[in-house]
């Protein structure tokens, strides 16, 4: 029997053994949200981990048909409350595509500033909780201390810490408050040394590397077949980022790199790569934020849009690079002011589906590492 690279001889000494069926969740400290796994295990080694999702299904897609285009914006926050700005932006963009609405330049920059701040916050949460699940407590608090500062910044921007409802169809709700640039740049300046401290505390730690390196390696072909997106896909070596390759908003005017996994701790596409790509992306987001504040023009932040917005009949599909990868928004309009159908295809949905096929041969403790490294959040899976 081979376990994570070791050859293990199990001498059962004549004992009868049988496969156990264990239940992990839906309430569990290490699953990211309300997720349930039925784990068939042979001792410590899993045979299969079958996910059971739907505990957080709130029929958000059906609700869109009842509340209309404008009214749906607060609901989109709840699709992924950890990175809500991207959901706002996705809904805004698909409706703007359906109805041919153009967002003013300053509005686009406000969107990108809010989104990139949210990306940093989301990655800090992802990285912090991954470390916490693996067993280290202190780096979690370091990550969350920085995330609290971002929450304060976003609260100043739009009044909410987590479910922002900041964006509107045609732009954003409010302009940046006075003095915002100084606050955000001040935060970025003090965060850079914190990131360095974090690297030395976590990424160079042998125990952390031992838990993550070579665990659940996903080769690029498998990642593409399962439609893994975002940092999960980039960790497997596929250099694809919607902001770079299908640019939207003002990303064509911004310069940033797209980090990919290089197998620095083990193989390309293992759990450590997925963690490391997120850490590098925080740095890229900081670069983008600085450029945005240099380049942001004056002007209105939102286009006037009728209260009863009736896009012409038809459908539209857009993708926005959320913290968890590209989030596809598909909307069908029948010419009335209520969407006929709205579908969100999220990054965590595919990530959750691949866990079952990664699980044979992993240990129970590795299941936690896999879920955390894939950055699965329950609201995205269930909607």
């Amino acid at each position, binding site marked *: 029997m081979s376990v994570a690279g070791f050859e293990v001889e199990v001498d059962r000494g004549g004992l009868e053994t049988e496969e156990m069926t264990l239940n992990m969740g839906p309430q569990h400290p290490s699953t990211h949200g309300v997720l349930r796994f039925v784990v068939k295990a042979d001792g410590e080694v899993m045979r299969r981990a079958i996910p059971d999702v739907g505990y957080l299904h709130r029929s958000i897609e059906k609700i869109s048909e009842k509340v209309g285009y404008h009214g749906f914006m607060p609901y989109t926050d709840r699709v992924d409350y950890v990175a809500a700005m991207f959901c706002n932006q996705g809904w805004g963009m698909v409706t703007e595509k359906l109805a041919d609405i153009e967002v003013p330049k300053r509005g686009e920059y406000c969107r990108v500033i809010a989104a990139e701040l949210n990306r940093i916050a989301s990655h800090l949460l992802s990285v912090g909780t991954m470390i916490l699940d693996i067993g280290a407590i202190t780096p979690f608090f370091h990550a969350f201390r920085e995330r609290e500062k971002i929450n304060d910044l976003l609260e100043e921007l739009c009044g909410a810490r987590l479910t922002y409802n900041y964006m509107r169809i045609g732009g954003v709700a409010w302009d940046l408050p006075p003095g915002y640039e100084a606050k955000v740049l001040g935060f970025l300046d003090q965060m850079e040394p914190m990131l360095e401290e974090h690297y030395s505390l976590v990424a160079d730690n042998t125990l952390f590397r031992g838990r993550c390196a070579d665990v659940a390696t996903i080769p690029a072909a498998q990642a593409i*077949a399962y439609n893994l997106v975002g940092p999960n896909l980039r960790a497997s070596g596929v250099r*694809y980022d919607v902001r770079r390759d299908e640019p939207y908003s003002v990303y064509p005017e911004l310069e940033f790199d797209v980090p990919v996994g290089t197998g620095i701790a083990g193989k390309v596409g293992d759990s450590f790569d997925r963690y490391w790509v997120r850490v590098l992306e925080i740095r890229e987001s900081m670069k983008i934020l600085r450029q945005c504040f240099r380049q942001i023009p004056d002007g209105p932040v939102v286009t006037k849009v009728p209260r009863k917005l009736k896009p012409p009949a038809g459908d539209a*599909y857009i993708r926005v690079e959320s913290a968890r990868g590209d989030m*596809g928004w*598909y909307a069908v309009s029948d010419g009335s002011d209520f969407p006929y159908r709205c579908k969100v295809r999220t990054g965590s949905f595919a990530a959750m589906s691949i866990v079952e096929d990664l699980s044979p041969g992993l240990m129970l403790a590795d299941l936690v590492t896999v879920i955390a490294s894939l950055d699965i959040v329950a609201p995205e899976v269930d909607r």
Partner: protein
Amino acid sequence: MDAASIHSRLREKFADRVTSVEEAVKDPFAVVEAAAIVDICRFLRDEADLGFDVLSNQSGVDYKAEGYIEVVYHLYSYPHRHYAILKARVPRDAARIPTVEGVWKAANWLEREIFDLLGVHFIDHSDLRRLLMPEDWVGHPLRKDFVEPAEYHGISTSRESLLR
């Protein structure tokens, strides 16, 4: 490749199994026969110049007035960076279509969701059971004629308005 070229390649290979194309819209699409979907998808994935290696989205839309459910496939190609959109229509009262799970693994859960919420049966799917709703749920919630049951396991689904 632009949509028109992709559609003409499809028409060349599959003739009248491609029922119609719509190119004068923001997201050009091709409507195809439900029975031909697997062959068409495999062709789109395996041809070198088409190379649609990823199923970006698969959704079902219930067109109650027209009497069909449309399964929409959004395909994308990482090597060529182009899109294709396929639509297949199945009658609402006999909603069956072959699964494309053999072409893209991503279809597994996407199809389970369409089965769960819209009641489309995917032929030859390896594990077609409900995904988001509980296993013993009756009905398909995203259908336009779905009526919410009055209670579920003794818990009422409505309550008196708290506002007076």
